[in-house]
């Protein structure tokens, strides 16, 4: 007999957005179950987030300026209403975080400290002591202290179950036992983060595989702007112990670092904007002059005294500096291989101002949502988004659960699992192929011909099933299910990229290098009669 867990609200994801929504739903008197694929606070993308969270919180800060900046970076397809809410409500949510015990870098006079970036004093970025990791831990402690919140680690959501177009719960996998279970709930809040792991190089975690977006897609939710992926310019790709460690791009200028291709040719990147830096580096990598591990070199040639250089690196790199030091890696002495890498997914599930999707009872919040930031995101708006829209989704959920019948969905998922596990290839091999296809054919600089090739190769990969032994703590099965979802999502991302025949923000196409006013619109992906349909809808 399969276990059926009953609750009012189920939150998928234990990062900053998921936990904030759980806390607010609990404050409204709901019983909340939080599911996490790993251990809450030690998995997902939040623990890797940097220190910045935007909130025009000081008396002399300006909410209008924060909004203006967000709209400018969104390049015409950000959602003005959602960005306004973000700017307006982030100060109150920041104060909630203080109440949860989180501390921030402060000025001597008690105001929140704002950092200087690219020579300018920022007017809305606040600095969390301990960054995303501390944020996730503070929210975890608050959630664990709530009698209405129950956290289930090592649990993967596999299917959103609906009856009469209303969400009634989930089918989940208990990773520790390898068994399926059902969750009966009136509302599902999706807070599963992004899909950065689709690309060969990423600075996020290995569990950012995006199957949450596939759950929403299969439940009938509209997905928008999936092609909009923010790549970070400089991320270490070698040695293995430093893979994924990002280096602030303006640090290169501060300490006079040269960027060289694999043949030691200078990429003359001094005056380049971060976005042009990404394009220049990616072009060098793709033109056959990459370093041995497929990147470019970062080499400091500075006349400053060594102690001063180390001080600058230490201040900018924070905890990453300590890690590199322990690994015996020196940013200022060694020639280090780096590359642009996927960093944040701007696209995702379309939501309204309370995180509602077009499916009754299904909410989405945080990075998994798709129509807030448009074609580009302001630094530190990501963490603010988790708090503002997590809170709003938690407040908006309803709890009139009906008793769904889970026997058919459970049998269907069981059958799908048996099919996925009926092949010969290892999940790791397929995953690695897919990541390389996405990186080389649908990376930071794109072209219609290459994306078409990517699409064909992704569809070829989709015919593979995998060889998996179902066992206790079934990481292999999790890996196989992730890969299956990644392949479907990759198809949706590439088809969205082909649909958008222009360049805007983080979607850059060599065959359509100009921005097109006709594309002041979203690409939309949805499943209609078992078929993936892509179209264009007004922004």
């Amino acid at each position: 007999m399969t276990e059926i867990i009953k609750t009012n609200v189920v939150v998928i994801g234990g990062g900053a957005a998921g936990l904030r929504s759980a806390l607010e739903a609990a404050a409204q008197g709901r019983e909340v179950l939080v599911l996490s694929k790993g251990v809450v606070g030690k998995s997902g993308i939040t623990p890797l987030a940097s220190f910045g969270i935007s909130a025009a919180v000081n008396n002399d800060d300006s909410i209008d300026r924060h909004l203006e900046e967000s709209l400018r970076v969104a390049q015409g397809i950000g959602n003005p209403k959602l960005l306004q809410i973000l700017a307006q409500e982030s100060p109150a949510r920041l104060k909630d975080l203080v109440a949860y015990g989180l501390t921030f870098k402060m000025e001597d006079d008690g105001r929140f400290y704002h950092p200087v970036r690219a020579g300018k004093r920022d007017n809305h970025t606040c600095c969390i002591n301990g960054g995303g990791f501390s944020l996730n831990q503070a929210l975890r402690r608050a959630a664990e202290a709530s009698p209405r919140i129950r956290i289930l680690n090592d649990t993967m959501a596999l299917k959103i179950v609906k009856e009469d177009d209303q969400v009634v719960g989930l089918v989940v996998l208990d990773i520790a036992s390898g068994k399926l279970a059902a969750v009966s709930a009136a509302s599902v809040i999706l807070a599963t983060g992004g899909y950065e792991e689709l690309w060969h190089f990423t600075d996020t975690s290995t569990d950012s595989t995006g199957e949450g977006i596939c759950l929403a897609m299969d439940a009938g939710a509209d997905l928008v702007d999936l092609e909009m992926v923010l790549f970070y310019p400089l991320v270490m790709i070698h040695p293995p112990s430093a893979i994924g460690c990002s280096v602030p791009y303006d640090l290169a200028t501060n300490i006079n670092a040269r960027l060289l291709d694999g043949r030691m040719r200078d990429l003359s990147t001094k005056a380049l904007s971060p976005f042009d830096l990404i394009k220049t580096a990616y072009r060098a990598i793709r033109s056959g002059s990459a370093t041995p591990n497929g990147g470019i070199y970062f080499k400091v040639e500075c006349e400053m005294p060594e102690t001063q250089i180390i001080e600058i690196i230490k201040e900018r790199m924070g905890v990453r500096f300590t890690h590199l030091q322990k690994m015996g890696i020196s940013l200022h002495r060694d020639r280090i291989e780096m590359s642009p890498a996927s960093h944040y997914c701007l696209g995702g599930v379309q939501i309204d101002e309370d995180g509602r999707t077009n499916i009754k009872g299904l909410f989405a919040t945080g990075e998994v949502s798709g129509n807030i930031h448009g074609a580009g995101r302001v630094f530190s708006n990501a963490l603010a988004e988790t708090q503002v829209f997590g809170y709003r989704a938690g407040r908006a959920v309803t709890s009139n659960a009906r008793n769904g019948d889970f026997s058919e969905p459970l049998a269907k998922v069981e059958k799908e699992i048996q099919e996925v596990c009926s092949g010969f290839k290892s999940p790791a091999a397929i995953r690695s192929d897919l990541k390389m296809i996405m990186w080389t054919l649908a990376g930071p600089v794109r072209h219609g011909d290459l994306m078409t090739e990517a699409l064909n190769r992704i569809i070829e990969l989709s015919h593979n099933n995998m060889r998996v032994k179902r066992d206790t703590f079934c990481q292999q099965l999790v890996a196989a299910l992730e890969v299956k979802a990644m392949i479907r999502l990759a198809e949706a991302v590439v088809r969205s990229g082909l649909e958008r025949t222009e360049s805007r923000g983080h979607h850059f196409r060599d065959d359509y290098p100009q921005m097109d006013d006709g594309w002041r619109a979203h690409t939309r992906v949805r499943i209609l009669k078992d078929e993936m349909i892509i179209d264009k809808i007004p922004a």
Partner: protein
Amino acid sequence: MVQLKIFRLNPEKEEKASYTTYELENQNSLLMALRFVREHIDPSLAFRDFHCAKGVCGSCRMRVDGKPRKACETMLISGHTYLIEPLEGKQIIKDLVIR
């Protein structure tokens, strides 16, 4: 080359733990070596491999030659053999994974 002598236990099926020794090219850090084992030698090996690349999250903590260490910050030296076991005093889910 390095050798990893790894603690193995599936509490659902076995009462007593055993040790399996793997020999592989040095992968720089212990975390990367464990990933190599799982991807290329023995897919049944269980460990938590969320990778923060900062040594911050602590999800890869385990005992290396008896001492608690983070796998991501444990550099391996070629020619050595390492004894890899789960942290003590916690319920073992499987192999190096604890609750």
